[in-house]
């Protein structure tokens, strides 16, 4: 098999969805959908990039008289949050593999369920952290420009996670209703892209907000 013929066969099977030709959705229809979602993710990443630049501007000179990052942050909870979110991404990856290699509805749903639960665990920890910040630590978003930007950046990421979970539940319902039909497969693939992107954003948050924060 030549290299180009090999690529073509992969394309027909649609990388990431199925391993055999003819099993997945029509690539001519699937490709624009997946490509479109990549473009959407790019626009979404621009949004996060803007939030990060706002944060960077605010952390230098936007703190006012309110408590700053060194007063507020320790790495314990963010470390646990990171582990949970990464584990959720792992579960999401296992779900994709269950779809691609095993074509097994039960296994797929189990991994999707674990993805959901870990996402929920992350959100619970984050909410707990938010409540603590606002009450015990006296650092609500209204306290300073920097805190506003911290809450907006973290809040936007958290909202993305919550929206992703609702989306995941909808897809799970469709898996149960319709089985592994093509449109559901494409949705799972798009969800996976979205979920992994949120991980990448979180890694940036851990670095820029927490690691730099405790050092400052």
């Amino acid at each position, binding site marked *: 098999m030549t290299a180009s013929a090999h690529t073509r066969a992969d394309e027909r099977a649609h990388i990431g969805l199925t391993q055999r030709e003819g099993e997945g959705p029509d690539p001519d229809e699937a*490709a*624009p959908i997946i*490509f*479109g979602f990549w*473009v*959407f993710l*790019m*626009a*979404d990443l*621009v*949004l996060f990039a*803007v*939030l990060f630049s*706002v944060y960077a*501007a*605010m952390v230098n*000179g*936007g*703190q*006012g*008289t*309110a408590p700053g990052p060194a007063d507020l942050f320790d790495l314990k909870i963010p470390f646990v949050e990171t582990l949970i979110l990464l584990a959720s991404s792992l579960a999401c990856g296992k779900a994709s593999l269950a779809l691609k290699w095993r074509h097994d509805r039960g296994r797929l749903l189990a991994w999707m369920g674990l993805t959901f639960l870990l996402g929920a665990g992350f959100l619970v920890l984050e909410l707990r952290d938010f409540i603590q910040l606002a009450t015990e630590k006296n650092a609500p*978003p*209204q*306290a*300073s*420009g*920097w*805190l*506003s*930007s911290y*809450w*907006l950046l973290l809040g936007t990421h958290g909202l993305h996670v919550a929206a992703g979970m*609702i989306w995941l539940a*909808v897809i799970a319902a*469709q898996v149960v*209703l*319709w089985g592994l039909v093509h*449109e559901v497969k494409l*949705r799972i693939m798009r969800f996976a892209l979205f979920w992994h992107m949120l991980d990448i954003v979180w890694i940036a948050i851990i670095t820029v907000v927490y690691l730099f924060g405790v050092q400052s």
Partner: protein
Amino acid sequence: MSLLGILGWSDIIFVKAWQNPSISEAIAAGAGGAAVLGALGAAVLVTWLGAWRTLWTGWLTSLDHKKIGIMYIVLALVMIARALIEAVLMRVQQAAAVGDPGFLSADHYNQLFTTHGTIMIFFMAMPFLTGVINYVMPLQIGSRDMSFPMMNAVSLWLTVGGAILMMASLIFGSFSTGGWSAYPPYTGASFSPGVGVDYWIWAVTLASVGSTLTGINIAVTIYKRRAPGMTLFHMPLFCWTALAVSILMIFAMSPLTVATAMLALDRYAEFKFFTNGDGGNMMIYANLFWLFGHPEVYILILPAFGVYSEVFTTFSGKTLYGYRSLVLATMCIAVLSFTVWLHHFFTMGQSAEINAAFGIATMLIGIPTGVKVYDWLLTMVRGRIVASTALIFSSVFLVTFVVGGVTGIILANPDVDYQVHNSLFLVAHFHNMLIPGLLFGMIAAVQVWFPKAFGFRLDERWGRISALLWTAGFYLAFMPLYAMGLGGAMRRMRSWADPDWWPWLLAAEIGAFLLLGGLATLLMQFWVSVRNRRALAVPGGDPWDGRTLEWGTSSPPPEYNFAVVPQVDSRDAFTAVKAAGRAYSAPETYEDIEMPKATMVPLAIGLLAAACGFGLTWHIWWLALLAFIGIWGAVILRSFQRETSRVIPAAEVARQHEAWLEMVRGLPQTPRRAGLTPANSGRAEQGEPA
């Protein structure tokens, strides 16, 4: 907490005018009344025509990119009428207010320049260019639709939702007085309490989300749905500009969305992003807004550049001069547009080095733009020119735009900018760019593609009158502002102390009236053309001896655009087909065509988004919450719908197409010079070398 939030009787404009009668309030009430009567009148007209069913099934719920494009343009025309009348009102006030307060209250005047700018950018220019791209681009690349027809309709109806909020502000409460750029801290809660800024925030947010989705849709369509053989470098230049615009939309709308969200958080939840004190920093807003705002300028101008490229080739009967240089110039402009945003606030405290860097970057944009101007001129040289209305608008653009470009280069110098910052010189400059560089292009686009969309040409005589009025009006309205601006007159002034400026102001006022006349005669042109549609009919679908694929299909094109997706071998694809004598030949086989079914979901999403924005503006929390849940509920329910397309059988396609071919073959061939006469049958004379 009342059921209607903070909305009370005295917020309704008519009640307000009754309670505090004045000329200013009477004008506001008149505008509110016009909005109500306009909506009622439209409803009565539709009922009288018995067209509700057609309107609902054929338009409001349609996912056809051509219908969506036309609806965008209708929205733009409605909104330009309002914003242009506001401009006239401001000029009348200014000319009357030399050493005198005039007749408009300061608050009313400030609302006028805010709504004028906001509408012209977000609800006239953006819908207009999005509509033209929506209509033309898929046809030009030989596609049957956009990649995401449903999302396309969602973009349209979100934009309409924003426009509904703009119109609602005429009747309920008042609009922002903070200008179209809404700089905090002035637009923060402490200096602008009340609902005005909230109207601005939600209207702009809906429009910007709609534009982000549009950008994604256009880019994916161009990358993935070109006809076989239509390589990127075989695309008509208009498609290249559409591609550049979509990339700009994808990258530039997010900063605006973030900026408006931050302003909303400041206002609603007392966040401290842009406040004075507590670490707030309004410079972040200025940077974010112009990080969107400058690419936006090129989002506005590039599609017009694309239209002009089509006009100059088509009406010169020549292929585009310097195609590759035009493509390169377009892409250079797209990239450079992200490197110059700071020139909007040279005076706001950066170091001289930073200002110099951005000044140089700004001047650099003049280079690719200059390349384009020469390419267009050379396209016309030794061409067989047909002086259509579209070409007249395009030629006026060439001359006028260069003047605006030169004043832009002047402003790009930070030293000069310090002198004329926020003066009428700036106002003259950006109108000098956007009126020829956007509006004339869009009007030219309507002149060119109207026969494609409706099967008959637009009346040339009224078109020329309109072009004359737009041109004279532009020069008379804006050249005086250059002089005044250099003399120190600031923008956004309600009244003047210096009587020397009165002649300039009077000239500008007359110019504004001429511009209004330009719009009126344009509408007159539509009316006259509809009445004379038999004489103006071009059933062949190719009235201009067109060069690109859209001219090879019927007028109006079928829902599926092309009976058989064309095979493309070169640029100017339809010219090549005609030169080879293969135009209007029947294909060997037909296939079933799958097209999206109509759906009311996008319309519902747009209306719910408007309701959500209205609820947020007036603190009617239950309405905002229900509408928000409704929007996402509609999206989720839609995802459970599996039968979203229908199939048009090959036999039906064959029947329609064969009938059309038969009709076209029976039409007389129109020589080039007869293009503007009733002899134009819509079938161009063949056999001449391209």
